[in-house]
């Protein structure tokens, strides 16, 4: 094609062959001149794609920024419902997967098939781990009734108590302690009878009434939380499929030192997913 016959000496050897032998090279698409052109095209392509991803998420970050700027009280109250521990663990999990993804690229570049497959596998496992933890968090939210927007109906037991602006704790736990203090029959920890359960529930409802009123539009915090983490989760799942696809190709030994674009591109995508989480974590979990 075009550049070939007048190409710079560097790739003239390849250019010379053009039109004859590139059909023999299955790893070079017919419309490209050289592996370098093919790789660069793919690389620019994936970068531009990442750009669209950033702008895709920007809408959510915009919503977040506006709500946090205009209703900080909502965020200061509602972030207590999130579990920093899980958030931090997930961050680490993603960082590990990022490392292995980057390492997978290195292995591919060096033609180390075993290492490539190993790294890809670890990356996938981490991705599953991440989703697993997300599931735990989501289930908790579901049981507490802290769902987004119109579906936000928190149960008294699991509401956060704030008194004089100070974080007191989760209603259920506080209730149990106070009841235990008042009634000898109430065990401070361990199993509870159905009756004790109900007592705790009724008492937490009382506590919630006495605590500072919950700020308006708290439901929106959970809208934003679920939308941001949810969309990110969708990207993680997509990543799992992409990496698995690359893994299968790696097992078939399709990648060579000259042809490892797919690995690199998928890794770049995966790093972006990590990168977005790097911001989501402090923005949602670490509000003081």
């Amino acid at each position, binding site marked *: 094609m075009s550049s070939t016959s007048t190409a710079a000496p560097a790739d003239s050897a390849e250019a010379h062959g053009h039109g004859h032998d590139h059909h023999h090279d299955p790893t070079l698409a017919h419309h490209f001149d050289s592996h370098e052109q093919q790789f660069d095209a793919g690389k620019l392509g994936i970068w531009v794609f990442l750009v669209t991803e950033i702008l895709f998420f920007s809408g959510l970050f915009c919503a977040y920024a506006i709500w946090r700027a205009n209703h900080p009280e909502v965020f200061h109250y509602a972030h207590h419902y999130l579990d920093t521990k899980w958030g931090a663990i997930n961050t680490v999990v993603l960082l590990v997967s*990022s490392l292995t993804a*980057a390492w997978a690229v290195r292995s591919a570049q060096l033609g180390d098939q075993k290492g490539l497959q190993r790294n890809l596998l670890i990356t996938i496992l981490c991705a599953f781990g991440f989703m697993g933890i997300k599931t735990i968090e989501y289930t908790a939210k579901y049981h507490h009734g802290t769902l987004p927007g119109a579906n936000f109906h928190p*149960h008294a037991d699991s509401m956060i108590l704030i008194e004089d602006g100070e974080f007191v704790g*989760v209603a259920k736990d506080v209730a149990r302690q106070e009841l235990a203090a008042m009634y000898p029959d109430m065990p401070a920890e361990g199993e509870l009878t159905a*009756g004790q*359960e109900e007592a705790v*529930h009724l008492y937490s409802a009382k506590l919630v009434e006495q605590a500072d009123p919950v700020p308006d539009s708290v439901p929106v915090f959970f809208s934003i939380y679920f939308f941001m983490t949810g969309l990110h989760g969708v990207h993680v799942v997509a990543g799992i499929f992409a990496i698995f696809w690359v893994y299968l190709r790696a097992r078939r030994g399709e990648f060579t030192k000259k042809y490892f674009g797919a690995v690199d591109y998928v890794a770049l995508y995966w790093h972006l997913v990590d990168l977005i989480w790097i911001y989501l974590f402090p923005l949602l979990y670490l509000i003081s």
Partner: protein
Amino acid sequence: MSDSHAHDDHGLAHTMSPQMLIGIWAALIALTGITVWTANMHLAPFDLVIAIVIATVKALLVALFFMHLLYDRPFNGLVFMLSFVFAGVFVAFAMFDTGRNQTAILARQDAAPIVEAWRADIAAGSTEAETEHLRGLIDGSIEASHGHGHGDGEHGDEAAH
């Protein structure tokens, strides 16, 4: 091509050394620890700034090394940067405007019916919470009314806090 042939010397792309990979990764983990730690120090009003700064440092590490931007064609980096510029403009303009209109908007904040709804809901839950009733329930002299509206004890251990 305008931006090509920058790296012919080392194959198709730059290769990261294991030391670098591990090093960067360790740095990222450390920064994660730091950001959690600072968050617990309640450095308001700087907490947000600090968190963002740390996050940005982490993002830079990932982009420059894990994503090879430092060694990649400059144009790819430029493209990537561009996305933040435009996202920034979008967020900034939108924030500036809504910020200016808050007074007008807040005038009606109390109109969020849902909040009202579940507040009433909860208040109802506690009406007959008299001491006697509680004691009865606890020592078992009163039967637990099964299927009360809000019970979710069995999931208590997942409580976010």
